[in-house]
């Protein structure tokens, strides 16, 4: 069983929701990223989404764009991202790690080499923002034998045949993008998200995560009530940007923010 599947099974047995924080690898620094990953887990994260920085993050709002810029400015490259995961795995064998990023760094390395390295260090899934299922067949074929899940996005504009197709090819879990917009937007409408999740649930038994626009414990709780997992990105990355220079304060702040989300998710009626 994959780490992702085991994770969702365990949560389900305990009647709990998955908390999935997003941070960008190399922000504020390579060393601190590994430390932060452990802080996230200790504070209650179930799965970690690790952003692979890219020079042209078209689907991201300003907060995650800046994180990508900081990481690249620090010299972070794809091999560094793999090393981060490897180091994390030295102390943590169970928490799933998902790489989230854009297609070009994978294209350049070559699918085989990228996937072999990812599998080798213990990556469990990939979310590639600009790789819709229509273009994904070749990469999927390489991922499958390595047991790495390709996690597809569904958005408010995903309808009809395309929705069916995505549910068919997806593995791991499905990631519902809660709104039309970039990461960090804030017009999440819980009722509309709930309606769409119902529609998706009628087509698949995979767990459903929701991301984009989850800013605080209150929204996390509301979304957790109707989904299986909540993803928190910009709100966390904003805190990293604020305290980046001061690592103790940063870790304390990240820890207390994630704990507040954990508590909110654990207190769903």
């Amino acid at each position, binding site marked *: 069983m994959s780490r992702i599947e085991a994770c969702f099974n365990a949560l389900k047995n305990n009647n709990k929701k998955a908390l999935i924080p997003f941070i960008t690898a190399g922000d504020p620094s390579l060393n601190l990223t590994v430390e932060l990953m452990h802080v996230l887990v200790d504070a209650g994260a179930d799965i970690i989404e690790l952003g692979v920085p*890219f*020079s*042209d*993050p*078209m*689907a991201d*709002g*300003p907060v995650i*764009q800046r994180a990508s*810029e900081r990481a*690249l400015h620090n010299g972070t*490259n*794809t*091999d560094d991202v793999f090393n981060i995961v490897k180091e994390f795995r030295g102390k943590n064998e169970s928490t799933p790690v998902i790489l989230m990023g*854009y*297609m*070009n*760094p*994978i*294209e*350049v*390395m*070559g*699918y*085989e080499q990228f996937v072999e390295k990812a599998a080798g260090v213990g990556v469990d899934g990939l979310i590639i*923002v*600009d*790789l*819709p299922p*229509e*273009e994904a067949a*070749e990469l999927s074929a*390489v991922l499958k034998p390595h047991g790495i899940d390709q996690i*597809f*996005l*569904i*958005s*408010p*504009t*995903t*309808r009809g045949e*395309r929705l069916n197709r995505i549910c068919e090819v997806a593995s791991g879990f499905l990631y519902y*993008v809660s709104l*039309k*917009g*970039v990461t960090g*937007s804030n017009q999440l409408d819980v009722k509309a998200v709930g309606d769409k999740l119902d529609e998706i649930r009628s087509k698949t038994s995979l767990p459903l995560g929701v991301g984009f626009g989850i800013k605080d414990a209150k929204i996390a709780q509301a979304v957790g009530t109707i989904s299986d997992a909540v993803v928190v990105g910009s709100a966390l990355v904003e805190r990293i940007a604020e305290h980046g220079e001061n690592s103790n304060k940063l870790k304390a702040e990240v820890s207390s923010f994630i704990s507040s989300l954990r508590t909110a998710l654990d207190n769903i009626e």
Partner: protein
Amino acid sequence: MLETNKKIDNSEIESFKSMPDKRGHFGIYGGRFVSETLMGPLEELEQAYNKYSKDPDFIAEFEHDLKHYVGRPSPLYHAKRWSEQLGGAQIYLKREDLNHTGAHKINNTVGQALLAKLMGKRRIIAETGAGQHGVASATVAARYGMECIVYMGAEDIQRQAMNVFRMKLLGATVVAVEAGSRTLKDALNEAMRDWVTNVDDTFYIIGTVAGPHPYPTMVRDFNAVVGREARQQCLDQTGRLPDSLVACVGGGSNAIGLFHPFLDDKEVSIFGVEGAGDGIETGRHAAPLNAGKPGVLHGNRTYLMEDNYGQIIETHCISAGLDYPGVGPEHAWLKDTGRANYVSVTDIEALDAFHKLTRIEGIIPALESSHAVAYTAKIAPEMDKDAIIIVNLSGRGDKDIHTVAAHEGITL
């Protein structure tokens, strides 16, 4: 893994005009690499384009506007004095500089704005580098009474103050993009972000043959009027087809517009000219087809300027319109098939050509077009006196006189 960079056996290709396939692929290039939210809207756009591009009323209105608003057909002008001085081939200039707003860009914006109108979108957005596409978009928005937002890199806003003011006069809102390298590629990123947020009421007018399917095809088709006219004008004036075509390549819209109607005329050789900036060997250039590798950016797979880890690198070219790290996917395919040749000229060579054409023919070319002019001056002398070259003079140089003056240490 994808087999890239391989020469394709072109004896098996029946028609070079057969691309793209149903999913918008030109061989391994092109496609639709965008976030999920844009997939539905792109399908809608594709369906609308497929429907209207065959609709006689749409075609009639497009052609009417090209004639009476843009001023088409543009002349095919025999540059006799310049040809004589070079001592070789006869050079014909396709005068896109004489179009309304001064470049080929208006052909595409008229087409896309008509489509936007029919799709019921009242808000248009565009990206711009040199400001030519921004001006052309603001122009059609004014004419059709649409709201227009133009994204422009903060760096380019400083370089192209005149075009920024033109856009504002036309009623557009110009948004300065401060992210990344603050140039054209970042403006495109920002326009995509706007589109994903406002897809319901917004039409994104992309200014070149890049972006996700169907943009590379749609923008090509709207610009192909250039090549269709040139082909007929050449036959009318000389009784035969040209030996060579030359056009500059930024994203590649003026080039594919000229080339496409000639692709199956195998005896016509085709040259796309990229910006070599300070020289390809310096790394400071804008020539992905000459010195880049295939990758994925801005919704399609194509040749890109990137580092070993796939991060897009900064480009350098004196002409803002060529200052782009990618190129339209059809050019990538034409390169691999060998049907077209992609070459480059430096800033200095382009500036020299800018002055020569101005002094010899009394035509001030855009710095983008000057790259095509410069390459023509290299090949013409080697050709017979009865050989024919058609050069796409994609735009006029008024917008560039500040750049040229500054380069020569002159303050206006």
